């Protein structure tokens, strides 16, 4: 549900004036005949509705800097966020953390002990609803493209390093990429001003992470808020540092490359050899109905819950397609030895709505970018190590779940 507000007092005066004129008109025409009254009332109503919609469209098309009231206040935010909850009231504080989506912090062993049973169960429920369990195991990381397809000078060098077996500990991974609405909570809570959330080396650069109206926030936002109708779209236009700061704020972290690939390709190891891994989260063959890629979707970013058929075995949405995702790892390629000597580039996974080639939208394809790049098609999702979660006995009953790490 969206809550629109009048952009300024001047417009409110105009609305009142037109409404008043409509009422007067109706009263005047009432003296003529009943039919005329109905007709005139309808016409005036239509005229008013037309004027009202015209105002909204003009607002959207205007080149002027929109004022704060024209942007959406995410209506789904619970009241705890809107009201000033007293910080000395633990229950209000917990409610606020739930409202902000920071349930992962509540599941820390130190905090969980001080929660009530109802609050703890609520935190576990939020975890299970929003994150998928990925069991421990091994995964093979390959290089950006298949060595067999190289046919170029550095093919041998790449072949020598292909097939690195990585061990992944059990983790929880967000079922969906972080949305605009979720990121708005971070911005609204002053995430860009909380220096403890940011890596020390980027602190001077945080001031440069602004939107189109020079407010702190993702690059494409206006006046500190996302565009109308994009509540559930993945947040884009954020640097790797912004993604990391958000993850810290909600008590999570970015997944490593191995964790991301394992979640997507869901390896199964039947013998001593390499595990069998999926090329795409749904199987071996490209199916453009299952991911938002070039030529398969509306050629733009779609809400995070779409393309449900393409979810991974573990129930993670849009690992391939829609937006690229920052991971914690660095971009590594044997032939890119001199790549940006001062700043290691960061890894991107998964492909986006405009990814053109099928082989660049696979589970094991790795791209990269400068950590301060704020691209139009790069978002992220968060992870949480299972060891960091005190699950209070309600964790998924998998072989590798940290059942033994429960807290009383």
């Amino acid at each position, binding site marked *: 549900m969206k809550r629109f507000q009048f952009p300024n007092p001047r417009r409110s005066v105009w609305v009142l004036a037109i409404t008043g004129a409509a009422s007067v008109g109706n009263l005047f025409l009432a003296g003529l005949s009943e039919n005329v009254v109905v007709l005139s009332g309808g016409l005036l109503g239509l005229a008013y509705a037309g004027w009202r919609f015209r105002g909204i469209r003009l607002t959207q098309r205007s080149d002027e800097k929109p004022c704060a009231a024209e942007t959406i206040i995410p209506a789904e935010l619970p009241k705890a966020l809107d009201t000033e909850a007293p910080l000395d009231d633990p229950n209000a504080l917990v409610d606020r953390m739930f409202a902000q989506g920071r349930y992962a912090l509540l599941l820390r062993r130190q905090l969980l002990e001080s929660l009530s049973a109802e609050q703890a169960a609520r935190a576990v429920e939020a975890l299970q609803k929003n994150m998928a369990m990925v069991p421990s195991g091994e995964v093979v990381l390959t290089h950006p493209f298949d060595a067999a397809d190289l046919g170029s000078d550095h093919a041998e060098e790449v072949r020598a390093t292909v097939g690195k077996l990585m061990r992944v500990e059990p983790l929880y991974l967000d079922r969906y990429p972080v949305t605009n609405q979720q990121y708005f909570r971070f911005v609204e809570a002053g995430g860009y001003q909380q220096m403890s959330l940011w890596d020390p080396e980027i602190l001077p650069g945080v001031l440069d992470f602004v939107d189109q109206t020079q407010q702190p926030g993702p690059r494409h936002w206006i006046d500190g808020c996302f565009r109308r109708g994009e509540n559930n779209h993945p947040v884009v236009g954020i640097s790797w540092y912004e993604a990391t700061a958000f993850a810290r704020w909600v008590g999570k972290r970015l997944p490593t490359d191995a964790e991301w690939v394992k979640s997507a390709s869901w390896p199964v190891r039947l013998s001593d050899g390499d595990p069998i891994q999926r090329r795409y989260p749904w199987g071996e063959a490209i199916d453009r109905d299952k991911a938002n890629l070039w030529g398969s979707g509306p050629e733009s970013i779609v809400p995070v819950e779409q393309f449900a058929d393409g979810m991974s075995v573990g129930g993670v949405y849009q690992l391939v397609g829609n937006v690229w995702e920052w991971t914690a790892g660095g971009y590594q390629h044997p032939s890119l030895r*001199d790549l940006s000597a001062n700043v290691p580039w960061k890894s991107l996974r998964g492909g986006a709505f405009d990814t053109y*080639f099928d082989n660049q939208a696979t589970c094991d394809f790795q791209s990269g970018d400068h950590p301060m790049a704020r691209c*139009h098609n790069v978002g992220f999702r968060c992870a949480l190590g299972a060891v960091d979660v005190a699950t209070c006995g309600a964790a998924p009953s998998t072989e590798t779940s940290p059942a033994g790490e429960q807290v009383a």
Partner: protein
Amino acid sequence: MTKSIDIPLQSYQLAKYAVQVPCYICGEGNAFDGEFCRHCFAPMALAHQANTQDVRPAMIATLGASGVGKTVYLGMLMDMLSRETDERRLQMLARGAFSINLQQITASALARCEFPDKTPNEPDRWNWVHCQVRDPKRKQPVELVMPDMAGEAIMEEIDHPFTYHGTRALLTKSAGVMVLVDGHKLQEGSLDQDHFTTKLLSYLRELDPHPRRGWPARPIAVVFTKADQCDNCFDDPSLFAERYASRLWQQCQQRFTSHRFFAAGVAGACAPRTQYDGTRVNVPLRIEPRGITEPFAWLVEQMKIG
């Protein structure tokens, strides 16, 4: 004993050589079985297709300095339009096997996260494209010829006219032109791109200065390439031109009535790679075409053909 046998007299076939087949690009005569025109080195397949299929394709030239991305742009454009299945949009069908070479070379390289090799200077090694473009706004499909010429050859022809016969002939006959400019270099402050493009437009105007039929009235799409590395270029290409390529912008405003600025990018990100011989080349880390079809669609719409 003598035995009489019939020996077919095949000398009549020599008569074929007596008839000159005019090159479709330069119009000079050639032998009927020549692969390339001996004057301009354009493929004679263009002339044979024009004769046998009774089509007179229009020409679009893609110009720009060396390394600006002509091969990538053209190859990607062809590949994207060839993959298009929505009939409400521009579609492209290649005519002749030789026309698919360019998109094959480009798509294979980009899928491997590499840029295609540089186009050689020799005109007989250029890739020519003859294609049929289906435009939903037109009743009949448009036949087009688009060569991928080497940047050095274009520069050479501009500096020393008549060096490349085919280039000059093509530019004289072209119905429209796409001028590619490296947006990233422009933003970095390089003046070469601005100067070269200005020189190129001056050359075109001198080639045919007729106010209604000549280049002043023909459509010119100025495309800022590598815009993925200068993202503000996508916001307003015309403003970008005014700000970073003022000479080019001024030339277009004053001398060409039908022109428009565009931004295009193919790679989502590029990184420098040190090769084994020590040279550094840029490699694309992912392929995300943006703004590729728009200049071409505008040009087809503006061209007085079909």
